[in-house]
Every structure is written in structure tokens, then in C-alpha cells.
């Protein structure tokens, strides 16, 4: 036993002094990835206090529950198709998704704005665009996972109910594609609105209000234009509501049944308009977001 060992009582934490870091520094791509993952984890409250987890997981549970019911019914009645299709599911339960996006989008950006964290990011190997991209992709992944969960339950259920495997997998793949697109539209709108306020409550309210209003106005516009102008013109009422827009796109692109035939493109030109509208919404939201983060968080 050396003198040093004897002199120090057990359980003492020795101050070993400052150690320099000589390992790898992974740079900008790693920083961007880390922020993306933090955003994704944050959306589900992982690594955060328990109370920030409740809302996200409760909504996810509620969102998946109807899929479980649909599947249970299909299995017990030995049905040959699902009561709710892979692409219509998002429209039928849009309110829950709206609540999820409204809760999560402000969580992703307004905290950074309110607490002034952005200068800390900018003083690291990360650009403003990197920040916006990481936040967008992180939340997009979170929303995509949310939307994909019940659809995947539907797939598993239809396989258990011994429906045709080819049809089930094709339907599910189409559903996943549309879910990813819907998530991009919703993430864009959510983040663009949330980036304007430091107050999370205000952001939540703004997103819920605009999405719910869009959801309400869209069929009204369709029915009015439908009777006043033409059925074809009426279908463009769907462009107002992100959920119906993407549902119409699914009908146009994949040939699946829309939730409402009056609100889906009737021909190739219609599909093009729907596609352009979707791209325009996502593009505009990204532009707003980029412009917004050029100004805030100056070091």
C-alpha cells in the first residue's frame, strides 16, 4: 500500500484535474445529425421529464386504437378487406394528427426561440440552414412515425386476417408514401407557424386553429363550387385542407379510393394541380422558415 492510498480515506472523489480531449471531432455532419435526432427524440419526450411525454404518447395511443378495432373486426368477421383503407385512415382521424403536430412543432422550435438557445448552436459547427434542415427533418420523421403506426397495424392485421398478401403490402407501401408526404406538408405548416412565436401556447393555438379551419372550410368550398361551377372545379376545394389534398393525391397517383370522390382529382390535369399545390405548400413553408431563422438568434 502506498502512502497516497493510506492518506486518502475511502469514498473520496479525487480531483484528477482537467483532461484535454484528444479524440475525434466529427464536425458539421455529425452536429446536424445530432440535432435531428434530438428533435425526433424531443417530439416524443424522450430524455425529457415524464410530463412532456404524456401528450405525445396519449395521442399516439388514441390514433392507433381505431386501427386495432378495424383489425380486430376484420379478423373476427374474416372480412376480405379493411373497413378503413391505408390512405383514408389519415383523413378519417385527422384531428388527432392535428393535435399531435400542434403540440410538437412549437416544442421543436419555440423553446429554442424562447430560451435563446440558437446562439449556442450558431457558435458551433452548424449553419442556420443546417439548423432549419435538422429541425424540419427531425419533426418530419416524428410525424411520419406517428402517421405510419396505425397503417402498419392495419398491414399486420390484414395479414393475420389472411387477406391477399400482395394487395396488403402494395396498399401499405402506398399508404406509407402518402403518409410521408402528408407529414412533410403538416411539418412545414406547423414549423412555419410555430417559428413566429416564442410562446408555445400561442403556437399550439395557431396551428390547431388553422388546420381545423382548413378542415372545415374545404368541404364547404367544394360543395359551393360544385353546384355553382362544376364538379371538376369543386374538387379543388380539397387543396385547402392538407389531409384531403394528400388523400386526393393518393387517388390521382395510386388509383386508390379517395375519402370523398367529390374532392379528388378527376383527371391527369387535376392530379398535376394537386401535385403542384402540395409542392408549393411545402416549398413556401420551408422558405418562410428559412427566412425567419435568418433573423432570429443573432449571436
Amino acid at each position: 500500500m502506498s502512502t497516497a492510498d493510506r492518506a486518502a480515506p475511502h469514498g473520496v472523489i479525487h480531483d484528477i484535474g482537467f483532461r484535454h480531449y484528444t479524440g475525434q471531432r466529427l464536425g458539421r455532419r455529425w452536429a446536424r445529425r445530432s440535432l435531428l435526432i434530438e428533435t425526433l427524440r424531443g417530439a416524443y419526450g424522450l430524455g425529457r421529464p415524464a410530463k412532456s411525454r404524456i401528450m405525445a404518447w396519449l395521442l399516439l395511443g388514441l390514433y392507433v386504437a381505431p386501427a386495432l378495432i378495424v383489425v380486430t373486426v376484420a379478423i373476427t368477421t374474416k372480412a376480405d378487406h379493411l373497413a378503413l383503407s391505408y390512405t383514408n385512415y389519415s383523413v378519417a382521424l385527422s384531428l388527432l394528427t392535428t393535435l399531435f403536430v400542434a403540440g410538437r412543432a412549437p416544442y421543436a422550435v419555440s423553446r429554442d426561440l424562447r430560451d435563446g438557445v440558437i446562439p449556442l448552436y450558431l457558435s458551433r459547427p452548424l449553419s442556420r440552414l443546417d439548423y432549419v434542415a435538422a429541425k424540419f427533418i427531425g419533426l418530419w420523421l416524428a410525424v411520419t412515425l406517428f402517421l405510419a403506426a396505425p397503417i402498419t397495424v392495419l398491414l399486420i392485421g390484414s395479414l393475420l386476417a389472411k387477406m391477399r398478401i400482395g394487395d396488403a403490402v402494395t396498399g401499405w407501401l402506398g399508404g406509407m408514401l402518402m403518409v410521408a408526404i402528408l407529414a412533410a406538408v403538416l411539418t412545414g405548416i406547423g414549423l412555419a407557424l410555430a417559428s413566429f412565436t416564442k410562446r408555445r401556447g400561442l403556437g399550439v393555438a395557431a396551428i390547431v386553429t388553422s388546420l381545423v379551419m382548413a378542415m372545415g372550410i374545404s368541404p364547404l368550398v367544394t360543395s359551393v363550387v360544385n353546384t355553382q361551377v362544376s364538379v371538376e372545379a369543386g374538387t379543388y376545394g380539397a387543396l385547402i385542407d392538407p389531409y384531403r389534398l394528400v388523400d386526393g393525391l393518393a387517388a390521382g397517383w395510386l388509383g386508390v379510393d379517395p375519402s370523398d370522390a367529390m374532392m379528388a382529382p378527376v383527371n391527369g390535369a387535376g392530379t398535376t394541380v394537386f401535385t403542384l399545390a402540395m409542392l408549393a405548400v411545402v416549398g413556401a413553408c420551408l422558405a418562410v422558415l428559412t427566412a425567419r431563422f435568418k433573423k432570429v438568434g443573432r449571436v
Partner: protein
Amino acid sequence: MATISTHALTRSFGPVTAVSDLTVELPTGVVGLVGANGAGKSTLIKMLLGLLPPTSGTATILGFDCLTEGFAIRERVGYMPESDCLPLDVSATEFLVHMARMSGLPTNAARERAADTLRHVGLYEERYRPIGTYSTGMKQRVKLAQALVHDPQLVFLDEPTNGLDPAGRDEMLGLIARVSQDFGISVVVTSHLLGELERISDHIVVIDGGVLRRSTSTADATQVSGTLLVEVTDRADEVIARVRDHGAAVQPGRTPGTFAIDLAAADAAQWVVSAVAELEVGLVRLQRKRHQLAEIFADDASSASPTIPTPTAPATPTEEPA
């Protein structure tokens, strides 16, 4: 070796010139950056971090060009902003791990260094609690920790003692001195309290209206002057009279019982001691006076004021002497 050197660095925002033709070299160690609000300190820091391109001129920091190698610089430099910048709903540990990863450290290294760094700034059990529950002093330590977590070669600390009580201020200054001495990390620290900078800085840079006013080592600025400060408990007039009898030049002080003797008279200390002994009064202080940083401003204000183009700032630093 200079950690930072700028050459004719200029940055204008439209008609306003925030930093004007700045040529300066900052050595390793602790460098105090002094200037009133709007003097160009934060513009300078932004340019050095590679976040704001200069209008003209060049700057190198740790051998990297701030115009083209911003990402490389920001991997090796830490920055502690003056403003509130901490997320309130995560724990200090969680936050530091994230910030270390954002600086490019792999996850395992980030965890290890987050724990190490928090220990070095003096945060222990409380590091698992949300930052929102911390006192101002603890938050300030977390802010410092996030600037150090990736083991930078240089840190910029913007007003690190802002909002702290005197005890917290002392601890923060002690920490900053350790960062330089024990950790071997160069520090550029801004403060409007000259006394603080005097205590911890090896070098002082004064900018005003974006113009370099002075760049000097602290030792030069605070060297021993040729004045002896004396304070007695009683009968100061009689002591002064006796010292004057020896032919020394004596200047009565502002507070009663104090006076200053010009040290041109080499035996002055001896004269004071014998006068005090004969009069049987107490001797409180007998001290060689040191120059203070505030004198830089007093000198500059008297000599340079008329030529300073922007009258917005010059008096401010002297309003808050040590």
C-alpha cells in the same frame, strides 16, 4: 504566440461602422476586452467566430481565417453569450451532452466530458435537475460549462459575471482564472467592470466606437507608481506637517486620515514611521500605490476626447471604476 490577430478589420452596417480598421494581436492567457455597450465588442466576436463576414480586412484565429474557415474555428472555440441561453426543461447533464455532440464529439466522449466539465465548474448533484430550477449563479456555471465541454483552445466569455452577487462574482472570476491557468485554454472575456478585468486579465484591449484605443498587458497598466499611500488613525495634519518638514511633497487624500507622498523622497516611509511613533497614533496603511485600469480611461478622456468621432460612449467605462 497570438491566438487572434486582426489586420485592418472593418465591419459596417449601412452607414454605421461597428468596427473600424482594427489591427490588434491578442496573446494567449486571459485577455480582457473592454468597451461600452455598442463599442463593437459583439460585432468583433461575431466576426472572429466566422458568423459575420468583415466588410474589409482580415482576421486569423488559432491560425484559421475567419472569413473562410468558420466551421473549423467553431469546432475549436467556445462561446458563452451574455444573454440567457439555457433550455429550462432539461437537466444540465442532458443539455451538456447535447451541446458536446453539437460540437462534434461522439456520444460516449460527450457523456464523459459533460460529467467532467460540470464537476470542474462546481455543479454536483443538482446537475440531474431541470435547469429551470437553478439559481442565477448555477445557470451562469452551466453557461460556462457549455462553452468548455468540447475542450476548446479558446473561449469567448461575454459578461460572465453579469447578474451575480459579490460571492458568485468572485467564484466566477476564480473559475475563469482556472480555465486559463489549469486548463490551458485561452480566454477572451468582456466586462464593463474594470476591477474584475484587472484581477484576472493578463492583457487588456480597449475598443470604443469600433476603434482600438489601447492594447496593453495588465502588468504594464497596473505597475507600481511613484506614490506612497498612507492612512493614520488620528492627527493626520500633524503627521503631514512632520513629513513636509523633511521636504517631501504631500497630497492630502479625500478621506480624513489619508494622504499621498511623492516617492521622489526616498526615505519618505521612514519619516512617516518615526512621525507616527512620536505622535503615538496608529498607522493603518503604508502602501506603494499601483496604477489602476481606470486611469487608462481618465488619461484617454482628457487627451483624446476631442478627436474621438463618436461621442456616444467615451465616458461610460469611467463611470464604473474598480
